[in-house]
């Protein structure tokens, strides 16, 4: 790795009722964890627009964490189910872009799971640290280059390309 | 004349960091949460012979009283029945802590002299290291040689019985590839630096 002082940057979208409260609880319980994640509070994980995730990665985040209530526990009934579905679609897109699964995570953390906030964030920070910086802005420039030179039809999944190679 | 002894402990009697060292052994971390309830002592079939019941050993370790713990008979009386470990309400792996203490007592040579158990452990260790297997009769014979001839004499009827029932064998069992095992054990020794050649 070129920069020894590099620290992963993670943007976290936490729902107000479960995960944000769990992070508050972690604080009240003085549970210590890595400082690499900054939390943006939303009322429900259902509010997480896939654009937020792409935007965060495009602006230099090395990972994005979405935290919501456990299935069945959503304050609004089933906002988290919608997040889950949306997330699965987004994941495919991210894979196509060559972004590793570990960089974008969806986790269910209930209001009482302060300890889990620590585990999830620490775990994610370590995984992203192992992957290294994402440098998406730089990658985008590269892709643009490929697109012009390549004769492959656009939108071919990355995995398939690898399999045929 | 009544013989009296000072039992007070000074800060200087503590060996700072000893508790931490034991608690850093894999599986021994939970000792920190001991609430001194005494379930271990109450469950232990051998606590009735111990100078410190297991509960006190836990307290002494946590408070860094290394010398008191390593010199105590308690760890050597542990038969590894794991009753304390499964009963402990704090899920402290007490049996594993006893092992960690035994290892340190042997390393530092502070176990009670002529007490047969540590000697047995060492003889066992040596035999396995050399041959890969244990031949029980040879082991017992060595144990008696090193500790107490009279005890051996006391068990003559047992020995005789074993001979007559055909269970007595003085043949040393071997594995076929002792060198392979030796190399592995040596590699492990380097791995944590704890293992030392026995004197």
């Amino acid at each position, binding site marked *: 790795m070129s920069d020894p002082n590099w620290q992963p940057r993670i943007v976290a979208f936490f729902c107000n009722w479960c995960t944000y409260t769990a992070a*508050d609880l972690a604080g009240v319980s003085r549970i210590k964890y890595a*400082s690499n994640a900054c939390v943006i509070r939303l009322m429900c994980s259902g509010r997480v627009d896939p654009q937020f995730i792409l935007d965060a990665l495009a602006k230099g985040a090395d990972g994005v964490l979405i935290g919501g209530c456990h299935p069945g526990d959503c304050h609004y009934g089933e906002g988290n189910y919608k997040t889950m579905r949306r997330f699965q679609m987004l994941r495919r897109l991210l894979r196509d872009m060559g972004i590793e699964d570990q960089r974008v995570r969806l986790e269910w953390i209930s209001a009482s799971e302060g300890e889990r906030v620590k585990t999830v964030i620490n775990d994610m920070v370590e995984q992203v640290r192992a992957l290294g910086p994402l440098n998406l802005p730089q990658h985008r420039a590269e892709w643009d280059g490929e697109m012009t030179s390549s004769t492959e039809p656009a939108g071919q999944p990355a995995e398939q390309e690898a399999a045929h190679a | 004349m009544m013989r009296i002894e000072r039992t007070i402990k000074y800060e200087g009697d503590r060996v700072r960091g000893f508790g931490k060292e034991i608690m850093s052994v894999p599986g021994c971390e939970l000792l920190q949460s001991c609430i001194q309830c005494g379930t271990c002592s*109450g469950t232990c079939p051998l606590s009735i012979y111990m100078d410190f019941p297991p509960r006190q050993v836990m307290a002494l370790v946590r408070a860094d009283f290394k010398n008191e713990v390593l010199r105590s008979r308690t760890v050597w009386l542990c038969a590894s029945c794991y009753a304390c470990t499964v009963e402990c*309400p*704090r899920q402290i792996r007490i049996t594993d802590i006893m092992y960690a203490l035994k290892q340190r007592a042997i390393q530092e040579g502070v176990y009670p002299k002529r007490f047969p158990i540590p000697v047995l452990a060492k003889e066992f260790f040596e035999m396995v290291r050399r041959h890969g297997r244990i031949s029980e009769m040879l082991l017992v014979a060595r144990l008696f040689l090193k500790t107490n001839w009279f005890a051996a004499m006391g068990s003559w009827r047992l020995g005789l019985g074993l001979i007559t029932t055909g269970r007595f064998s003085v043949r040393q069992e071997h594995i076929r590839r002792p060198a392979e095992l030796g190399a592995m054990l040596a590699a492990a020794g380097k791995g944590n630096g704890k293992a030392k050649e026995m004197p």
Partner: protein
Amino acid sequence: MNTQNKNGEVRIGFYICHCGMNIAGVVDCPSVAQYIAKLPGVVVSRDYKYMCSDPGQELIRQDIREHKLNRVVVASCSPSLHEHTFRNAVESGGLNPFYFQMVNIREHDSWVHTDRAQATAKARALARAAISRVRFHRALETTRAPINPDVLVVGGGISGIHAATTMANAGKKVFLVEREPSIGGQMAKFDKTFPTLDCAACILTPKMSAVRSHKNITLWTYSEVVKVEGYVGNYTVTVKRKPRYVNEDLCVGCLECIQACVFKEPKFADEFNMGLSKRKPIYIPFTQAVPPVVVIDPERCLQVRTGKCKKTCLEACADRQAIDFTQKEELVEIKVGNIIIATGFKLFDAKRIPQYGYGLYPNVITAIELERFVTSSGPTGGEIVMRDGHHPKSVGFILCVGSRDMKTNRWCSRTCCMHSMKLAQLVREHTDADVTVFYMDIRAPGKGYEEFYDKSLKEGIQFVRGRVAEVTDWAMAPEEEGKLVIRVEDTLAGFVRRVPVDMIVLATGMEPQADSQEVRRLFNMSCGSEGWFLEKHPKLAPVSTFTDGVFIAGCCQGPKDIPDSIAQAGAAAAEAMALIDKGYIEQEPNTAYIVEADCSGCKSCIPLCPYTAISLDDATQKAKINEALCKGCGTCVAACPSGSIRQNLFEDEEIFSEIEGVLSYV
């Protein structure tokens, strides 16, 4: 970044709170203030010891006046704690309260990180994000919704009874729903109560009758809540009323039907007496039951089960015709504004610790069973007897059964020490037995409790500090023959003892009710990892939940004794009444709205809304949102393909700017 946007010139005031050393101990507050001061649009940037204090709030008001601030950002604790405080300060300073943004650098930063440089860097990032975001804030108005003044109380134990009567006395209409055929809960089973040793029935029974006779209380026993819809001020609750096959209004509790039942002898385990006595298929739960009417057990009654019975009970009740085999299960819908949950606890099953021999040795009993023995109305008429009919000569109490144990329940059940000491004193009162209490720690922190411990000691009760390892019946010494032997380390004496006794009492701890997860989902509450219902804040909001208008009282929130349960029930009643008497609910203006010009009328948002707040306007063929129904989750906003749905307080540009903010610091 330009300082101008569509709202005109932005003038931001930034305040970072030290919170004593809570924040300043880890975050370099002055340096954060200096960093923020340089950002465009920031007019003042200060650090201050306690922003939530009066002078702290005054600082904001003063700066709004003097520096003509039109945006305020405070970096301090969690918004769940003080967002309200600062919005009020901003409002009283003359600004719309929604021109405010809060940054959480205590719970999410200083309390969870140790490295000063890293924590300070994170505080900067979070503060910068808020500064970026607050530019886009708009003036918003809170909306008001009317509140239904009626209240539902779930659970008729001492907590539910107290909450219901308190509110009923204040003139509120209360529905009290209880699952069992009588109210009274666990307290009704007790003989006396610590530390005063006053009779439980004498203090509970009048409260129970008051519930029944109160004109403002509708009491539904043998009933369960099955569905809850709506939100604070406006809940619709469906209650299932199980058939008791007895008309409550006609039955006078003469009990002649029980005499007349075709089952000549009581045959079935009596739930109230923990199975220590028997009852018939038609029975009254206990003498002082409220309502004081009989109930028919559908599992046992021949008529209900097979339809082939002589129905001698009907004959016995010919005058009043209270027995009614045609009763069916009913679903009743009620509308209430607030709900108080007081569903209580379940006792730990002593069989889960096989070492103590409960269920194996007949003279090993639980504390609640002993409670039934010592009660004069209990199965033995107040006599403590062993299974062979003799009085015990020695009794051992084992404390913390199932409690403070990682293998079963981690928590301290809080009441067992006192409960056991009370029973120990009663055993001494009723018999001449030697009593030994085996404990880990005596926890007697209530008013008059330590004195009660002292009294127990002075009465000659033996206390042995040690968690009992096992109970056996195999004797190793002559004095142990025919006895139960307790093997324990006397940790204060430092050796293992074997203590032979005649009878062993297990102080079983408290657990969440078996169906606590279902109840939690039903009322949209949270549970802690142990299964107790979670309060909104452990100190500041101990009876509130994360769902407005749903309160918790008593042991469903965690183990507690009678005084604490009653205190909590009173608090829950007061919180509910505070909402009711205010007369309206203020709603956070975080609702979604449609930008009509952009809406393509694709209707993809409509099925997403859990509150059916979105519909298609027939005339315009565009989506429209009923603001009164919208709860502000934002799911539709994230899903709208044309970006025409937006959310107040969580606008896309606000969130994008927040993302940019947290990532753009160096």
